[in-house]
Each structure stands twice: as structure tokens, then as C-alpha cells.
């Protein structure tokens, strides 16, 4: 019984983590985190402005569906 509860809790936790990761990817939070890691920077208005500059062209060219 306890084992089943644990498995269920693990399953819910896993699903929540995937949903959160998907949302972070959709909303570019993961891309920003990768940018900070790559450049070895701390988050700041300047770092985010630089991230936006770097991604501006690719974001603007991203097709949006009908």
C-alpha cells in the first residue's frame, strides 16, 4: 500500500516536473538559463538584455502557425 502511494507520488512529481520543463522551454526560460551558463553570468537586467539581443533575430523569424 505504502509502495503504491510512493509510486503514485513519484509519478505525479515526474509529470509535474515535465510540465514545468515544457513551460520553461516554451517560454524561453530554459534558453535564458543556458545562456547564463554558457556565458558564466549571473541574472541581471544587462544579462537579460544581452540574451534578448542574441535571440532577437531567431525569435523574430520564428514561424507562427495559423
Amino acid at each position: 500500500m505504502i509502495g503504491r502511494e510512493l509510486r503514485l507520488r513519484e509519478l505525479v512529481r515526474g509529470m509535474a516536473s515535465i510540465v514545468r520543463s515544457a513551460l520553461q522551454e516554451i517560454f524561453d526560460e530554459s534558453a535564458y538559463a543556458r545562456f547564463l551558463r554558457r556565458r558564466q553570468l549571473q541574472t541581471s537586467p544587462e544579462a537579460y538584455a544581452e540574451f534578448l539581443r542574441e535571440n532577437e533575430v531567431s525569435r523574430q523569424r520564428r514561424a507562427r502557425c495559423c
Partner: protein
Amino acid sequence: MSKSARALVWVGVTAAGVLSVATIAIHRGEEINAMWLVVAAVCSYALGYRFYSKFIAARVLTLDALRATPAERLENGRDFVRTNKWVVFGHHFAAIAGPGPLVGPVLAAQFGYLPGTLWILTGAVFAGCVQDFVILLFSVRRDGKSLTEMAKDEIGRLGGLIAYVAVISIVVILLGVCALIVVNALKASPWGTFTIAMTIPIALLMGVYLRRIRPGKVLESSVLGFLLVLLAIWGGQWASHTPSVGRFFTLTAPTLAILIIIYGFAASALPVWLLLAPRDYLSTFVKLGTIVMLALGIVALRPTLHMPALTRFIDGTGPVFAGNLFPFAFVTIACGAISGFHSLIASGTTPKLISRETETRMVGYGAMACESMVAIMAVVAACVMQPGTYFAINSPAGIVGQAPEAAAASISSWGFPVTASDMHVLAQDVGEQTLYNRTGGAPAFAVGMAQIFSHSIGGKALMAIWYHFALMFEALFILTVLDAGTRVGRFMVQDALGHVWKPLGRTSWYPSILANSALIVAAWGYFLWQGVKDPLGGINSLWPLFGISNQLLATVALCVATTIIIKMGRPKYAPVTLAPLTWLVAVTFSASYYKVFDPNPRIGFLAHARLLASGANAAAPATARLIFNDRLDALVTGILIVLIAAILVESATEWIRVLAGRKQPVLRESPFVATRFAAEEQG
């Protein structure tokens, strides 16, 4: 689960699918429950995914889990990133789910629920999902190349050029249609106009919040933005009940058209972080949340469909748009069944995130099945309304008349009873002055969605809030397509004009930004203005043009896919893409023929131009403009058909050369590199 238990489950799914499709198809005369549509859809997608996509993966494409993807070979932490398959699935679904699967099925519901539902199910399983899946895989095998590049490499230079022209034309027509839907949804609606107007300062605030206050916290700022949007919906109610404020937001269609054109220009020319990016985030948040809520609402409420399976309008005399069931139902419903635009996404950002080839099946085929499910929900939202109400909302004044009593009498005479007082009460329930002649599909969808939501939560008291939430959701959705699309279109024009004079191609040179933004806005603004000014044109003539151009793009994608399958040495499996291609060609060619040459002025552009030219007001400037519009529409349609024909001829020539052994097939795939994660694969 044992093999026999699994087999039993699939026998059960097949039985449930057959039973529900049979119920939908055979039932006549009595209303049916919407759950039959939901069960039929879920079973069709499950069977399509489990068996058909597996067959394509194993036999046609021979997916190789040991082959390194571009996300692994070219990983740069920016565009190329190995990503969890569920995360890529979410990313891909968020990109392909637009307003199309909501609006098209609502308009096509004039034929009854049956034609649209069957086309959405078969179209998605055998055409749309297949297109998205194969294009995604072929792009993964070519370093994430775009559709236009693949067309150039695999078919020829003409193929690439046509794909390029098709993309620009679809973008322009799509933007014109989208803008017109927003105008029709917001005209004389102070509540909706106020709420949508408020999303612009909310987006600007989010832009500043993201950049200055909490850098990079997009989810957090999107939640904040969403709460402010809810406040704006409430504020819209206040504005509509306060005459001194409401009159500023009670706008005519031409005024709204001008404002939207100005907005499109601003969104294209302003820095991306200020307006475009935050609105994009906000609309994605609202979009995903609303789709989930609608699905839950339908399952919880299990509403009854009041629309019959087939209406008398399958003969082509429909008030929502004129034209026979074939081909017009199949160009009106594009995105829920097959959308060429998806091939741009499947060969855009998604292939650069895929970790293993085997995941293209789930992402490509699976995400399109989910998109198709959204279209089924739109069919339900349109068909839960009383048919008389549906036709009163969606019929243009030119068909049913301006006066409420006259419109109600016309619609009732078709066998769909409705009274002026019914419509008045409904308009009051949703907080509108009138719901007559609100063409375009968005208001009808909003009424259907509000009915579903209000039966689930809040009852009639919350009907107006839900209606305006739905309206805001659609308009926000569509405006995002409009602003991002205008910017994408501006880049394309800059790329093209850069070949003529280099500075025009510089994306950061402000004179070029302004000139090219004006050019692209003028292109779609023309279609918008034409739709606003022409009482018989508008969405009626523009939506089929949109469907035709969207499916032209799907034709290009399926030509590319068929060419690659033949070059891979698997011609016996070419029908997997050749069959949907043949169907699309039949649909687009016949739809285009009718749109240009049909003698009925409600269908044929040239017949409409002749009717106007022979009328008493032929010399009036307004009539002359309408005649010009008709002739231009006919020309645009003709050009699209010539493009389809050219790409077909070039592709077929290539197939014949390869199959006859006159040409050695050369695939432009990137060479095989084994994945470093082979142990993970085998373990």
C-alpha cells in the same frame, strides 16, 4: 501488460471508435451527445498513432535510434539543444496551435457536424499528421533545414522558389483573414475592444517587468499578465455599462481596420522585447490554459449537439459562405486536418531540439493529432448552439438583412427556428448590443464556448464573462499571429529586396525596417480593407483563399516528402504521401476553379465582378473598387494554381526520371554519425 491483454485493449479501442464513428455517421433526425465526437476522435487518433504512424516509422522512414540528430551533432546551447521529448512535444504543439483549428470548423459547421468531423478525423490521421511527421524527420536528417531549402535541394531550384512565393502569399492572405476576423469580432463591442486594447499596455508592462524588474522570469510575468487580463475583462464590462467610456470603445469596422493596420505596423517596427515578445508569451499562456479548460468543460458537461448531421446547405447555398460541400468544406477546414504552415514549424525550431530520430513520431504525428482534437472541440462549440442562433450570428447582413425581425424570419424559413427576442436575450446574456451578422467564426465560437463554460461553472450569471473571455482569447491569439506574422513577412521581403539593393536587406537599418514594414502591412491591409468594405466579400471570399494558399504550402511539403521517399528507394511506400497530395490537388484545383469561374456571383470572383459591372451603380467609385478587388482575387487565385501546377510538374518529372533509372537519385541527407548515447538507447 501481456501481449493478449494489449491486443484486447486495442480491439476495445477499435470497437469504441467504429461504434462512435458509425453513430455520428448514421444517426439522423435526433440530437446526439458531443461525447460521441470526442470518443470517435480519441479512438481515431489512438489507432492512427499506434498502427499507421508505427508503420510509417518502421517501413517508410526506418527511424534509426542510433543515428545522432542535429541537436547532438551541432549542439551549441542556442538553437541546437538536445531536449526531453515531452518538452519538445509541448514546444511544437504550442507553435502549431493557432486560431485556424478554431475558426475553420465553426464556419464549416453550416454543412452540419458530420462533414467537418469526418474530414478532421480522416484528414488528420492520413494527411496532416503524416505531413508533420515526415517533414520533421526529413529536416532532422538534413541538419534541421527549412522546407524551402529541402525543396530546392531535393526537387530543384524552381521548387525552392515556389515554396518561397507560397510562404509569402500565405503569410499575406493569412494576416488579412486574421485581421478581418478580429474586426468582425470587435465591431460595435465596447467590452471586447476595451479588453483587447488593454492587452497592449499589459504587454508593454510585462516587457518592462521582464527586462528590468525580474529579468528572464517569463512564467512569473505571464501569470501576472494573465491576472491583469482577467481584470481587463472585468473592466470591459464596466466600460460597456458606462456610456461616457463605452462610446470611445464602440467602433465601426473601418475604424477598427485602421487601428489594426497601425498596430501591425507598430509591432513590426518596434523593438521585439517591448511588445511582440511579451504578447507572444501572454497569448501562449492564455491559449494553452483555455484549450485545457475547454476540453475539461466538454468532458464534464457532455453537451448535446443541436445542429443536424447534415444541413440543406451542402448544396452550396449556405449563408455563412457559398459553395458546395466539395471542395469548400475541405479548404475551409485546413488547420484541424492538414495545414501547410505546420511544415514550416516542423522544419524550423523543432528539428533542432529532437534528441533521437524515434521521437519524431511522437512529436510530429502526436502533436498534430492534439491540434486536430482542438478542431473537434471547435465543432462541438459551434454545434451545441441552436442552429437558428448559429446562422443568425454567422450570416452576413447582405444575405439575411439588417433588421432583427427580417433576419430571424429568413433563418426560420430555412428550417432553423429563431426569434428576434431569443437573439436579444442571448445578446443581453453575453453583454452585447447585438449578435446578428457577427461573421468570421470567432463570435459564434465564443458563444458556444461560453455556453459550455457557463453550464460547468457559474451558470447564466457568468455567461457574459465567459463570452468575453472567449472573445478576448481568440482576438489575443489572432493578434499574436498578426504581429509575429507581419514581422516574419517583413524579414522575407527584406531578404528578397536585399538582392535588388543591399541596404534594403539589412535587418537593423531603420529606413529599411520602416519601408518593408509598410510594404507588408499594405499587402495584408489591402485584403482587410477589401473585406471590411465589401458586404458580400470579406471573410466569405478570403477564407477559401487562405485555405487554398495554406494547402498549396502543404502540396509543396508533400511533393518534397514524396520525392525523398522515392529517392530513398522506397517507391512502393510513396502513396503514404502521394495519396494525401492527390486529394489536396483535387481540392485546391477545383476550389480555385469555382472561386474564379463559377457563374454564381456569391462564389465566382469574375461572376461577381460582372454582376457589379452590369448594375445601375457600375460607374460609382465604390463599385469600381469592388470590381477591381474581384478581378485581383481571381488573379491571385490563378497565380496560386499556376504555382501548384509548376511544382507538381517539376516533382513528377523528378519521380519519373528516378523511377525510370534515367537519373541517379542523390539524397541530400547529412551523413550517418552514430549517437554517443548508444548505450542509453540499448539499455
